[in-house]
Structures are given as structure tokens and as C-alpha cells.
């Protein structure tokens, strides 16, 4: 079946003309039509544009110029701008907003002959870890539809897991790619900050946000990272480096690699089922010749606290532009101040408002030094501590999430508990380093994500290691029971 193929396999069949681009698109669109009511992954599917994309992709194939992902349908998280397709960030405040431009990652994907399948659900403005903060719909975990897919890239993770799309783009500010990938049993990769352009990604925490792939294999993640990364003159924070190369993905060996196990990422909060799977994966990797050492990175303890100052502070400013004046729905009011107040009061959901208020407070005169400035100092310290580890070790291994997929509604009323779940993923954003989550087995029938972290700019090396790990773990590409 076309939809069961990995993106790499599908692209090969397209390049060899065994499958046409339209057939590949049809197969996925049919499946979305049949099953997305059940999963709730997509906020928008623009069939017409998708068929146009497929046509241009076929032209590339027919010219004999097909690349490694030409003709492959791509799902895009709905906080990434798509020219002509509504981009809402799952917020009412952007209902009906149609960007007049593509995000750089979308431009690059299209240039590589990929077909934009649709826009996926998320927590409003990517603020959340369950996708339940969407103003539009609930997304369900394909492993158990009574459970959350994680978040905030829950729609992207669930649609790849349910084989509604071969791969997807997400964004990761504190774990929003890796955590849903973990809960949905797929691969989620967050590149080094600055390797994928943020141009067109609706900003949440600008110094933390990074776009990356959600896929079913490490190879697919490497291929999509290669297509979407590289220097972008439209993004001042973009690093002047060549795209992340997949050329040597399969040429590595795990033998003799040194891995660090930070004890802070194996804290008591790790659920015993998760712990068991991670530990058995470590045993497998030991047999492959990886040397494991327990280390301590004390600043990790402050990661969540620090993150929940920096990210909301930046968000409070980033979200100031949503005032109903230039785009998006506008509420009626007396005078412009009242119009802005009412537009924002009616347009933003509860969690977004809470974070804007926290961030506004953290930046206020008299509190700036105690909160924002102090948080940046902790962040710098954390980066130093990680750099020290990378000087001695090839990678860091940990669980991605302390828990497996939780029940929908289970944690909705306990936002603090939800936030504490981020402690394993947040350090990669704080330090700008690349991180990847891949499935390592099941706990009570639910997938457990293994996180690998690498030194900043060492994206190729981290992917190479992840590929080796994936090949070694017997359950890495295990699929859910899906129709």
C-alpha cells in the first residue's frame, strides 16, 4: 500500500515512475478523507493546490530530475505560513488569515518537488503538550484514540503515525516535535537552532523555535531536514552553513561511541514503564559497542522554570501584533484601544492569555532583572554545562517524555503537571542543540520515545547515530493497529 511506504521508498517508486505523483497524492487524500474524522489531524486540506503541486512534481520526474523526496506529500503544521492556504496557528485570532507568502521551509519543500497535503492541528500558537489547546479540534493518538497525541505538533505526529501523510513538518520550542513523536511512536527531529530558517514560522519563542521533520524513519527525517535546512538571507538568525547533509547517514558505526546519561534526565518523574524500555534499549546499544557513562548536568533542574520565563516573555511580545487591525477577525469596540482589547480577549484562548500575562510580567520594569535577565543567565550556564559534556561524549541519551500518551482530558485541568513533562526536551532548545526522538518499544501498548541529543551544529553526526540506533533496536519502526 502506497501510504505504508516510507517517504524514501515512495520517492524511489515515483522517480522510477512505478507510482505517479498524482497516485501518491490520491492515496493519501483518500485516506485523510476516510480517517481524519477519527484522528482530527488536519485543519485544512487544499486538494486543488495539492494537485497543482503534484503536477509540477510530475514534470520534475518526467524531466528525469527527481530528487530524494520529489512527489512525496508533506503535511505542514498550521503555524508555518503557506501561500494561499489558511494559516491559523489553531487560534480563533487568525481565523480566515491566508498568508501571501510561503515560509522558507515550504518554498524549499516545493522546490524539491514535494506536495503540500494540508495543514495540521496544534496547540494554539504551539503552546501546549497535548494539542488539546487547539481552538478548532481534538487530535487523537493513533495508538489509542482515547489518548492525546502529545503536542504541540500533535496533528503532524498523529497524521504521520496514522499514515495519513508519509512525513510532516513541525516546530519545536520546548519539545513540540520530539514529545508528540515520542507519544505517537515516530521519529521527531529538532535541528540545531538556526539551521532551518524560521522565516514564515509564526513566532512563539523566537530564540527557541526551530522547524523540523516528523517521520516514520530516521532516513526520512534526514532527507526532509536536508531539503528544508540551509542558510536563509530572510532570517538573520539563520546560520551560514550548507543544508544538513544526508550523504553519510548510513556510513556510521555505533562501536566505540561514548554516550552520556545525565542523571537529571532519569529523575524519579520517569514513569517505570518508560524507564524499563529505555534501559533495555541501553542494553542493546551496549552490545553494539556504545560506552555509557552517567553524568550530572545540574542546571537541568532549572530548565523548566527558566523556559517558562523566556518562552512566555518572547511570546508576549511576538503575539502583540495580533490586534485585528491589519489581518484576522476584528471585534467591534469604541475607539482603537477598545477594539484591540476586545479582539484579543475574544481571539486568544486561555493558555495563550496565561502565557502572555506571565511573559509581560517577566519583562516589566522592576521584574526584568529578577526574571528575564536571571533566566538568560541560567540559560547561558546550561549551555556551558552541556558544552562540557559534548567535549567528552558523542551524544546524550535520555527518555523523550517521562510518560507515554495520556488520556485526552486527563491533564487539561492541570497545566502545571503538563509543563513539568517537558523537562527532558527543554534543554535542547535552551542550548540550541539538535535533538531527535525515536521509538524504542512499548509500555503497556503505548510507544516510548528515546531521545538523543548532540552538540550544536553536529546535526549530521546526530542523525547518523540515530540511524544506527534505529537499526539496532528491534521495535524502532513498530506501527500502531490502524485501519
Amino acid at each position, binding site marked *: 500500500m502506497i501510504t505504508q511506504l516510507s517517504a524514501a521508498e515512495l520517492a524511489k517508486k515515483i522517480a522510477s515512475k512505478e507510482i505517479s505523483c498524482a497516485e501518491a497524492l490520491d492515496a493519501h487524500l483518500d485516506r485523510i478523507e476516510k480517517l481524519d474524522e477519527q484522528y482530527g489531524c488536519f485543519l485544512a486540506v487544499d486538494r486543488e493546490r495539492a494537485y497543482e503541486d503534484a503536477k509540477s512534481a510530475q514534470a520534475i520526474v518526467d524531466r528525469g530530475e527527481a530528487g530524494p523526496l520529489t512527489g512525496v506529500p508533506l503535511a505542514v503544521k498550521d*503555524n508555518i*505560513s503557506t501561500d494561499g492556504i489558511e*494559516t491559523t496557528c489553531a487560534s480563533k485570532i487568525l481565523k480566515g488569515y491566508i498568508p501571501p507568502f510561503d515560509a522558507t521551509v515550504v518554498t524549499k519543500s516545493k522546490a524539491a518537488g514535494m506536495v503540500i497535503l494540508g495543514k495540521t492541528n496544534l496547540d494554539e500558537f504551539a503552546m501546549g503538550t497535548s494539542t488539546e489547546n487547539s481552538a478548532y479540534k481534538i487530535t487523537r493518538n493513533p495508538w489509542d484514540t482515547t489518548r492525546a497525541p502529545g503536542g504541540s505538533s500533535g496533528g503532524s505526529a498523529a497524521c504521520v503515525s496514522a499514515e495519513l501523510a508519509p512525513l510532516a513538518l513541525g516546530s519545536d520550542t520546548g519539545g513540540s516535535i520530539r514529545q508528540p513523536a515520542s507519544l505517537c511512536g515516530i521519529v521527531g527531529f529538532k535541528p540545531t537552532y538556526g539551521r532551518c530558517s524560521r*522565516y514564515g514560522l509564526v513566532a512563539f519563542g523566537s530564540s527557541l523555535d526551530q522547524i523540523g521533520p516528523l517521520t516514520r524513519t530516521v532516513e526520512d527525517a534526514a532527507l526532509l531536514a536536508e531539503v528544508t535546512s540551509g542558510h536563509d*538571507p530572510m532570517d538573520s*538568525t539563520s546560520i551560514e552553513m550548507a543544508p544538513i547533509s544526508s550523504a553519510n547517514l548510513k556510513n556510521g558505526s555505533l562501536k566505540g561511541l561514548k554516550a552520556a546519561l545525565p542523571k537529571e534526565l532519569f529523575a524519579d518523574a520517569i514513569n517505570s514503564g518508560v524507564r524499563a524500555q529505555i534501559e533495555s534499549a541501553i542494553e542493546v546499544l551496549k552490545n553494539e559497542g556504545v560506552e555509557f557513562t552517567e553524568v550530572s548536568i545540574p542546571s537541568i533542574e532549572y530548565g523548566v522554570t527558566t523556559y517558562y520565563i523566556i518562552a512566555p516573555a518572547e511570546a508576549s511580545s511576538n503575539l502583540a501584533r495580533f490586534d485585528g487591525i*491589519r489581518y484576522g477577525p476584528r471585534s467591534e469596540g469604541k475607539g482603537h484601544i477598545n477594539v484591540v482589547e476586545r479582539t484579543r480577549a475574544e481571539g486568544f484562548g486561555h493558555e495563550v492569555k496565561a502565557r502572555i500575562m506571565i511573559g509581560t510580567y517577566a519583562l*516589566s520594569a522592576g521584574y526584568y532583572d529578577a526574571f528575564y535577565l536571571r533566566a538568560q543567565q541560567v540559560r547561558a550556564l546550561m549551555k556551558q554545562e552541556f558544552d562540557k559534556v559534548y567535549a567528552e561524549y558523542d551524544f546524550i541519551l535520555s527518555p523523550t517524555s517521562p510518560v507515554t500518551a495520556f488520556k485526552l482530558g486527563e491533564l487539561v485541568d492541570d497545566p502545571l503537571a503538563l509543563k513539568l513533562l517537558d523537562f527532558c526536551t527543554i534543554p535542547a532548545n535552551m542550548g540550541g542543540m539538535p535533538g531527535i526522538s525515536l521509538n524504542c518499544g512499548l509500555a503497556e501498548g503505548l510507544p516510548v520515545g528515546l531521545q538523543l541529543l548532540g552538540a550544536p551544529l553536529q546535526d549530521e553526526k546526530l542523525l547518523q547515530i540515530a540511524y544506527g540506533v534505529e537499526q539496532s533496536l528491534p521495535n524502532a519502526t513498530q506501527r500502531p493497529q490502524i485501519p
Partner: protein
Amino acid sequence: MSNFVASVGMEVHAELNTQSKMFCRCPVSFGGEPNTRVCPICMGLPGTLPVPNRKAIELVLKTALALNCTIAMHSIFHRKNYFYPDLPKGYQVSQYGDTNPLGYDGYLEIPGPDGETKRVKIRRVHLEEDTGKLMHLPSGGSGVDYNRAGVPLMEIVTEFPPDITTPDEAKDYLTQLRQTLLYLGVCDGKMEEGSLRCEPNISVRIEGTDKYGTKTELKNLNSFRSVQMGVQFEVRRQIAVIEGGGTVAQETRGWNEQKEASYLMRIKEAENDYRYFPDPDLVPMCFDDEYIESLRATLPELPLAKLRRYENDLGLSTYDAGVIAADLNRVEFFEAAMELGGDPKAVCNWLTGDFAKLLNDQGLMPRESKITAAHIVELTKLIADNTISGKTAKDVFAKAFKDGRMPSEIVKESGATQISDDSVIRNLILDVLNANPEAVTKYKSGQMNVKGFLVGQVMRSSGGRANPEMVQKIVSEELEK
């Protein structure tokens, strides 16, 4: 009655002369249909990111150097957060901090009324982006024009406590600053179009006390005159308030040009909290000495230095030197004339006299006229060597202004050359004396004033071409014989 002293702080915003906006590539120019020079970036569309305009940074650095500032070799942009419909992103990208602005701790020297120089300390020169413009629609309601949003804006703020203490100094500071910006070519300086905006803050205190009074800020000043009048009005108003037993409130006041009075715009109850923080979308600007020195090397001679050089080296009066130095077009013309060996004073007189008048009548810039520095130098030489009289020169210049021919050519063709030959003039005089014996008799009997009549007759018989000084001299000689 106590004596009051005023303190005037000056906050000047100058739109920079760049081709494109600060963080996008939209063109920069004045006017135009609303919202025609905008793009997703300067409209603050979700997901857009800023990319700084290098030229704008360079222009601010040049200004900072010209204003004797310390340069921040490592400088960042901050976000200044506040809501207003003309602010597309809900924050303005600006620069915060004492030693973070591109330039800080500088000064500008201004020429005083008695030939002295006054130094006005400058606290900071920084780079930011302009906002859009809120406008009332003819159909009712209001709209926003974002054409100006994102135009690079330089802010120049004087030090506190202020060095400026009078309305005249406020005007002189602004004049000198504007000239400096024009010399540097960083801003077109058009106050009426808002590309140069000045917002003074004013306070008064009793002479001898060291506690500064409450400041008021003055807006809507769109000419030098309104700056001077506005400051003066505000100083007088504040003194009147205090003398009437009241206290000056911290407020923002607008200037009403028609009524020549300031009015209350808003009372500042508390300092706005702009929640400044480093803009995470922009990376720090780092400069090395080599780059800064290469910019310093491109600085032109600045207006005050020029004025002093004209005075000291060329012997112009302070007034004349100031009139030339104040206008770059005149400077260009004047200096070209000096290169051709022109006499400074004579050239200056033509430049600020007949030439300026004719240009003004036609609404032309000097370079748009047919007159070049060579015309003026030649004309002044024809006068100096007595080839033509000053009066004839005026006619010759008017002709040259019309058709662009060289003065010598015009003089030759019209035969308008001055007669300076002693014997020719003497013969003319003898003819006149012979024809007017009664006048000669009157002169000899003591009625000296008939000499004027005789000189006039000689000039007329020569068609105005006789050298008047020689006529005067020879008529006297002949009458005394």
C-alpha cells in the same frame, strides 16, 4: 521677582536617506498612495522576520562619529513594546541602554552670536524604525498608512542636564544639527515633510537653585521658527504658572502654529513601561576599529569647521561665512569659485546677492541655472581690473543668467567695456567744460556742488562707460586748473 533659567533637552528624529526600509526591501520615499510601499515584513505579518539594512547602520555610525560620540563596538537592537494601530508588530525595534546605542557621549558645537562656540553634549545616537501614520478618513473613521512604517529612523538625544538654556540656542542647535546631517548626506532634513522631527523638553527653575523643574514635552513643531517660538512660549508659560503660585505638570503639549501657542495633549501620569528586551530575531552588530576608522575617513568637513575656515583663512565676516556654510549648494559653488582663483568677498557678494535673487525669482537651485563658478569669477575680475563698472556688471550678469554666455563675451559684444584711458576721459571732460562755461564759473566762485552736475554730463556723454572714479578725479583736476 526671581530670575528663571530654562533647560531645554532636544530629541531629534531623522529619517535616513536609504533606498530601502530598515528591515525589509520596500522603497523609502515621501508621500504616495497609502499602503503602496509595504510588504509582509513591514506590515508585521505573522512569521515574517527582520533583516537589518547595512546602509542605515553605516549612516548612523557616520553621524555618531560626526557628533564626536563613542561608538558601541558591540550593539544590539531591543524591542520597545506598546500597542498602537500605527505600530504593525506591537513593538518598535529600537536601541536601549546607556552604552548600547550605536553612538553615545558625544557633542555638537554651535556658533554663538558673538563669534564664540558653544558645546552641546549629546547623550545618544541610535537606530530604530519609524511607525505608520494614523489618519482620519474623509468618509469618517480612521485608517492607517504603513508606507512610513519601517523607514530607518535615527534618534539623537542631548545629555541631561541640558546645555541649551534659551529658545535661540534651541534653534541654533537644530540648525547646526540639520546642516551636519545634510553635509553627511544621511537625511534630507525636510521638517515640513516630517523627515526631520524635533521634540524639545523644557523646564524652568529659579536661578541659583540646582533642582531641575518638571519637564514638558513639545510636539508638532515643523519649522525652525516654530521650534524657537514653541520653546519660548513654553518657557514663559511655565514661569507664569510658577509665579502664579501653581506647579508645572509633567505633560506632553502640542504646538498650534496658527495660534502660536502650545496646548495640552496628554498628562504623563507614570512613565510608560515599554518592557524593553533584546530582539531575539536580530543578531548583535559588531564592528572593528578598521571599519570605524574607514567610516571616519569619509567624513566631510563639517559646517562649523567650514564656517571658521572661511572666516579665518578667507577673511569673510562671520555672517557671510555662515550664510555660505549654511547651504551646501552655495558651498559647492563658492568652493569651485575659490579653486578658480576668485576673490572670496566678491564671490560671496554675488552668490548671496544678485545670483541668489535671480535663482529665487526663478525657483531654481544653483546647479540648475546656466551660471557656473567660472561666470562669477570672470565677472568679479572684469570689475576688479576696471573693465566694467559695478553697475554694468549687474546687467552683464543678468544676461549671462539668461543665456549662459561668459561675461567677457557679453561685454565685448555690447561694447560695454569701461573707458579707463586717461586721455580719452580727459577729452570728454574738456568737451563738457567748454559746453558749460557758466557752470565752471559757478564752481570757481565757490559753488562746489555743480561738480556733480558736470560729472553726470561726462558720464552721459560716454554712454555710462567712463570709469566713474577716474571721471571724478579728472573733473576735479581740470576745474582746479
